[in-house]
């Protein structure tokens, strides 16, 4: 017997997919399968508020849980068991506990898992941050005076560093490029943010990588950098990026080299009955060009769920409607100490960066940085500007000529 639509992944992407399937008119069965034991929850607090929350573990999980809509009251949630394998020609998935589920439509929303450093040593001192259980384990280790070494100075690494510093930890960040977050927002702004963070007591080791981690023998880890510098750490946080969870789709002839290759309607490689939502979806955005990309922003599960649900519900019910090109404007943010960074667009594709407002030497006073490709504005990143100033920069981006 078929389960109707099976949604692989019970994070925000899986939840939004279920809600949007209902909104798109799919009245049949929906089964959501998730590896984590928790119902869908909001991840941004994991690197910030949750780490300083006085709630007990259960209360902390509760506080970040997503509210569930009445439209999804009849969804069958299978939590704590991941899908292990799938046969797309047979429209069947198998769970780790041996359960077999047949489907008419499949949503791949399995998200990411953290990359780990390719070195052994001091496993009990090493932490990652992806799930709420990861965050609770890290929270238990953060205390004033402890030395936290954050490996990888991306957004999550810098947010954890700022939160740990707020708690009173000594904090060092190891970043392989010349400035933290430079891959996401470019060098000029990254250098300014590094000055801001360093002024609040975070020590940076830029242009550095980890060569080895060893147990120092008295409950701490010894981190050795490529330059030969050694750091003693009570806590090592590995925030060096993620891998898409797509291994369960092995053996189906798909290109799984970087998530799931989708068309602009989020169909997985032309299969009418399989769509992808969230971090695993690699799709072209005609706002920019025809290159399929994965986008690891919080807004992506919501945006892709809407379109993917319309695509899948249209296929399953036969009521296909023309949705027009899917060209969402990416939006992302990061909170570090009292500073809010708000971005719109795709800074990573720019070939030119300019300051549109403010002064990079005084970012707390408000700065807007523009990112251009072939002269066209493709992104804007705003620092320390209140939300009533955002609309102006969004409207500049909405003028971008669309390729489709």
């Amino acid at each position, binding site marked *: 017997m078929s389960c109707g639509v099976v949604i692989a992944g019970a994070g925000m992407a899986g939840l939004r997919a279920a809600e949007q399937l209902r909104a798109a008119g799919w009245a049949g069965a929906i089964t959501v399968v998730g590896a984590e034991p928790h119902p869908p929850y*909001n991840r*941004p607090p994991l690197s910030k508020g949750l780490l300083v929350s006085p709630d007990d573990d259960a209360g902390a999980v509760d506080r970040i849980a997503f*509210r569930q*809509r009445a439209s999804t009251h009849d969804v069958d949630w299978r939590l704590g068991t991941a899908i292990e394998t799938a046969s797309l020609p047979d429209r069947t998935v198998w769970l780790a506990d041996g359960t077999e589920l047949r489907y008419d439509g499949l949503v791949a929303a399995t998200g990411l898992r953290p990359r780990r450093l390719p070195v052994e040593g001091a496993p009990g001192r090493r932490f990652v941050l992806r799930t709420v259980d990861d965050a609770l384990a890290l929270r238990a280790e953060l205390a004033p005076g402890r030395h936290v070494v954050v490996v990888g100075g991306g957004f999550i690494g810098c947010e954890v560093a700022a939160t740990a510093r707020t708690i009173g930890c000594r904090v060092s960040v190891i970043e392989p490029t010349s400035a933290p977050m430079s891959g996401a927002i470019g060098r000029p702004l990254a250098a300014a943010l590094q000055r801001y963070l360093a002024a609040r007591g975070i020590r940076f080791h830029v242009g550095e990588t980890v060569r080895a981690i060893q147990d120092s023998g008295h409950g701490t880890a010894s981190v050795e950098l490529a330059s030969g510098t050694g750091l003693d750490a009570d806590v090592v946080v590995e925030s060096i990026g993620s891998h898409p969870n797509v291994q369960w789709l092995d053996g189906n002839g798909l290109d799984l080299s970087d998530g799931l290759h989708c068309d602009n309607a989020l169909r997985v490689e032309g299969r009418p009955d399989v769509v992808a939502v969230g971090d695993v979806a690699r799709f072209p955005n005609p706002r920019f060009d025809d290159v399929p990309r994965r986008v690891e922003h919080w807004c992506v599960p*919501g945006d892709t769920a809407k379109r993917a649900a319309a695509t899948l519900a249209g296929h399953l019910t036969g009521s296909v409607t023309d949705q027009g090109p899917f060209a969402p404007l990416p939006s992302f943010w990061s909170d570090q100490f009292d500073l809010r960074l708000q971005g719109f667009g795709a800074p990573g594709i720019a070939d030119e960066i300019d300051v549109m407002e403010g002064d990079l030497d005084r970012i707390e006073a408000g700065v807007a940085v523009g990112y251009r490709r072939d002269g066209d504005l493709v992104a804007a990143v705003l620092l320390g500007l209140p939300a*009533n100033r955002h609309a102006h920069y969004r409207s500049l981006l909405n003028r971008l000529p669309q390729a489709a």
Partner: protein
Amino acid sequence: MQITVDRTLCQDHGQCAIAAPGVFRITDDGTLDFDAAPDDSLRDEVEEAADVCPVQAILIEDAR
């Protein structure tokens, strides 16, 4: 339709004002102002606003 915003959660991201400009608004001092009892015809955009709130501070009282 009745809307409440948990002010202990709201961080003035302003995403709701982008999703539902007829209901939510960021004032000149950068804080949130909203219509707590908007017309039911605005339900789709209010639900969108609740979905895109980064801190999930918006509650629609009689949600479907």
